[in-house]
C-alpha cells in the first residue's frame, strides 16, 4: 500500500492532468451533441472491435481444430480415390499417415511418417503429398516409416513430360525443397512453362501418370542435345501435414525377380 501511495505521489501531476482532461471531455460530452454523437460512435466502434477480436480468437481455435480434422479427412479421401482410380486387376493398397519429419523442417532430404509395418506400410511404397508424388518408403518400424523424398541429392526418379511426352530423370536441386530438375529431355520435345510433369511408373514406386509438379523453366542451349527442365514440385514438404502412401505387392515380386536374375551368372 505504501508503494502504491509512493507511485501516486510520483505521478500525481500526470494523474491530475488526465483527470482534468476526463472532466473536460465529459463536460463537452454533456454540452455538445456533436461530441456526444462522436463519442457514442467511437465507443460503439471500440466495443465492436473488441468483440470482433474476441470472436476471431474463438473462431481461430475452432477453425484450427476443424482444419486438422479436414486435413485428416482429405488424406483419407485421397487414399480412397487412389484406390478407386485403379482397376480391379491392380492391387494397389493405400493408406494415409501424418508427417513427423519433413525435408522442409529439418533440412535433411528424409521424411518420417507415423505409419509403419503395423499399418500395412512396406518399404518400396510410394508417398503422395497433396496429390503429388513425394517420395518412397525405404524403411519402416512398427509405427513409423522412413521416406526417401524427391529432394534427396542422390535419388533419381522416372518422369515424363505430360501423359505422352518424353521420359527423363528427375533429380533434386541441392538445398531446395520446392524445385527439381528433369534431365535427358531432347530438344525435340516441346516443353513450356506450366506443363505438368508426371510419373512414368517405370520405377515401380508410383503408378503411371501421378503428377509430380509443373514446368517452371527450361535450361540449356540449342547446341546441346538435351534440355534441362526446372520443375516446381507439387509436393508441399514444408507445409503438408498428411500424406498418402501407395503400395503394390507386385513391386515386391518384381524386385525379388530382379534380384534373383542379377544373382545368376
Amino acid at each position, binding site marked *: 500500500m505504501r508503494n502504491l501511495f509512493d507511485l501516486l505521489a510520483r505521478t*500525481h*501531476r500526470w494523474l*491530475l*492532468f488526465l483527470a*482534468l*482532461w476526463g*472532466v*473536460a*471531455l*465529459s*463536460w*463537452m460530452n*454533456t*454540452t*455538445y451533441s*456533436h*461530441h456526444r454523437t*462522436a463519442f457514442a460512435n467511437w465507443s460503439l466502434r471500440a466495443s465492436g472491435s473488441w468483440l470482433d477480436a474476441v470472436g476471431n480468437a474463438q473462431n481461430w481455435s475452432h477453425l484450427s481444430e476443424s482444419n486438422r480434422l479436414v486435413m485428416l479427412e482429405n488424406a483419407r479421401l485421397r487414399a480412397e480415390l487412389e484406390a478407386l482410380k485403379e482397376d480391379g486387376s491392380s492391387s494397389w493398397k493405400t493408406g494415409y499417415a501424418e508427417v513427423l519429419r519433413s525435408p522442409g523442417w529439418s533440412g535433411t532430404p528424409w521424411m518420417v511418417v507415423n505409419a509403419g509395418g503395423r499399418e500395412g506400410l512396406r518399404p518400396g511404397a510410394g508417398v503422395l503429398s497433396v496429390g503429388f508424388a513425394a517420395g518412397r518408403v525405404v524403411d519402416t518400424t512398427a509405427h513409423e516409416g522412413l521416406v526417401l523424398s524427391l529432394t534427396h541429392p542422390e535419388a533419381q526418379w522416372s518422369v515424363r513430360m505430360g501423359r505422352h511426352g518424353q521420359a527423363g530423370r528427375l533429380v533434386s536441386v541441392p538445398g531446395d525443397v520446392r524445385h527439381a530438375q528433369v534431365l535427358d529431355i531432347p530438344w525435340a520435345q516441346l516443353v513450356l512453362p506450366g506443363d505438368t510433369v508426371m510419373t512414368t511408373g517405370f520405377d515401380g514406386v508410383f503408378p503411371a501418370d501421378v503428377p509430380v509438379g509443373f514446368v517452371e523453366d527450361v535450361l540449356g542451349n540449342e547446341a546441346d542435345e538435351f534440355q534441362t527442365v526446372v520443375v516446381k514440385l507439387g509436393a508441399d514438404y514444408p507445409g503438408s501435414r498428411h500424406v498418402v502412401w501407395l503400395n503394390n505387392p507386385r513391386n515386391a515380386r518384381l524386385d525379388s525377380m530382379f534380384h534373383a536374375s542379377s544373382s545368376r551368372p
Partner: protein
Amino acid sequence: MNALVPFFWTVGWALLSQVLLFRFGVFWGGYGLLMVHVYGLLKMPVGWPPTTYLLIAATTGALMDLVCFTGGVHLAACTTLGMVYPTLATALEARDGMRQGHVFDPYQDGWVRYAAFVAMAIGVHCVVMFGLQNGWGLMGRTAGQALTTVLLNTGVFLLIQGLLNRPTRGDNRNVSAYPWS
C-alpha cells in the same frame, strides 16, 4: 507573497476583459480568436511547483467555460497549457538561465524570445481547443485556425506589453552606476 499580487491582478483583469469584451473578438470567419485570458496565464512566474501551473491554468479554463458556456473546451486547452508551461519556460530560457520567480517580459528577455514564448503557448492552447471543436475530420481547418490565431494573439500580446508593461524610469533614478559614490 509580493509576486503573487501582480500575477493574480493580471490574471484577473485578463480573464474579466476576455469574458466581458474580447470574447466577441472573432475575426475572419472564426479563423482568428482573441484569447486575452492566456496573457494572464503567461505571467506565471518561473520556479513554482509544476502542479501549481496545472491547477491555476485549469481553474482559469474552467471559469472561462462556466461563464462562456463553452462546455469544457477551455478547461482542456488550459489544462494542457498548464501541463507544458514548465517545459516551455525551460525551452526558452536565456543562456545564463532564469532566476527564481522570473516572469517572461519582452524588456528583459527580448521581444523575439517573448514572441516565440507567446506563439508556442498560444499554439498549444489553440491546437487543443480547435482540435476538440473540429475533430479529426477537419485537421486542416484546425491548423489554419491555430496558425492565424497564434499570429493575431502574438501581435496583441506584444501590443499589450508595449502599452501596459513599459519599464518606468523612476525606479532607477536613485541607483548609481558607481555604488561607492
